[in-house]
């Protein structure tokens, strides 16, 4: 069982969600974040001077999925979140030890 931490443009959220839905990925947790990547945000010209705007608003999706589904999710994200411009986002993947469902008490360790 792995966690995907997916950072995308807020305006792509609807499209990404739709793409995921279509392939049956429903569970997710969403957080409003701000971020910058290696190109350090966006660089504006202002009267000849440069002005760096780092910390652009982004949306973070967290999805816990079975190991074998990880690549499917990555594929969908790469397709739906893509614009080709700087700031399209990243996916980081972690190992999950265990998952518990509060309502049912059900514990999943292998998924």
């Amino acid at each position, binding site marked *: 069982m792995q966690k995907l931490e997916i950072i995308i443009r807020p305006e792509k959220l*609807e499209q990404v969600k739709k793409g995921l839905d279509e392939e049956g990925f429903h569970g997710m947790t969403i957080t409003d974040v701000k971020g910058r990547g290696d190109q350090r945000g*966006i660089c*504006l010209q202002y009267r000849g001077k440069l002005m760096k*705007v780092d910390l652009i608003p982004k949306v973070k999706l967290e999805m816990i999925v079975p190991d074998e589904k990880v690549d499917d999710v990555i594929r969908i994200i790469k397709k739906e979140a893509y614009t080709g411009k700087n700031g399209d986002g990243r996916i980081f993947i972690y190992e999950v030890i265990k998952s518990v469902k509060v309502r049912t008490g059900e514990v999943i360790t292998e998924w």
Partner: protein
Amino acid sequence: MDTSTISLVDTGFLLICTAFVILMTFGVAFFYGGLVRRKNIISMLMLSFISFALVTLQWTFFGYSLAFGPDFMGIIGGLENCGLLGVFADQSTRNLLIPDMVFMVFQLAFAAITLAIVTSALAERVKLSSFIIFGLLWTTLVYDPIAHWVWGNGWAATMGILDFAGGTVVHITAGFSALALVFVIRNRHGFTQYSMNPSNIPLTLIGGALLWFGWFGFNAGSAYAINEIAVNAFVVTNISAAAGSLSWMTASWIYGKPGSLSMISGTIAGLGAITPAAGFVGPIAAFCIGTLAGLICYYALMFRLKQGWDESLDAWAIHGVGGFFGTLCLGIFASVTIGGVAGIIEGSTTQFGLQFLGAGIITLYAIIATYGIAFFVDILFGLRVSEDEEYVGLDLSQHGETTDM
């Protein structure tokens, strides 16, 4: 005060009404501010505040004179009143019971709010410096002449075209100018691709409340005196606003859910439509006008969306279409006992014809002149920020500010 020409009570009333109308420009600021994405709220608010400051100075230095100075061939006012020279604070030379200076400042508030309404089309993408240039030119070349034609003894006034409180001068002018602007500045990036939901509806409703409140000064004040016309205008304004609120809300309920934005858009539609007619129609006519305005403007909005026009905050659909409809309504519902003019319902089609002609010509002028000015400003200075600045948001890129809210 020269109390042979001046009525103190009317002067006091008009001063208060002027303050009300001035508050409305800020009402437009909050109304529009709540409708944009969070990264552009401050920018949107500023466009209205700047409109007000800018037009105040323009009006003081020469705008008032262009609009209301001595008539030149029915087209424009002379420059005699530049710098408010010869505008008396204690006597009237305009056949009104209030000093010329009070008339001047009441009219100032109208000129300012008109520019503020136009900023709808510039939302989330205009370059601040270019807006200032555009605003100055537009008020001078579009608003001032139109105000002169209708209210400053220009050709429209001479022909008998009527506009009680600005359905033509303010709402048609602002709405159709906004539409024309869109074809120069073009759509926001991502328009129709992803949702651009309003970020702060309570702020929009604060604006709406101030507009509803201020509109009493707008319409009742346009009687220029405390009299039965003012009283009637006050009452019918409220009825039309209420009817518009409920009819637009109902329309959108039929197709989905009754949102607060439906309701408040209906309010403004009702208010815009009753404005030209408020001194000429009675309560039941006002109910009809408001109800129809809510529906018509709702469909106008749907139409614009289908066309893919990014006239972002609907100055056209609400003010433009509502004001046009209201200007015609004067010719339909006017009642002799109220304002001395008969509409179609009372059997006369003359006024309707005049209204149609006036509204049509002024609509055309507003569209063409605005397009020209905007085109010119765009070529010379660029009306629009760069794509990156737009993406980052105007608050940060134009004003260097952000808001948590």
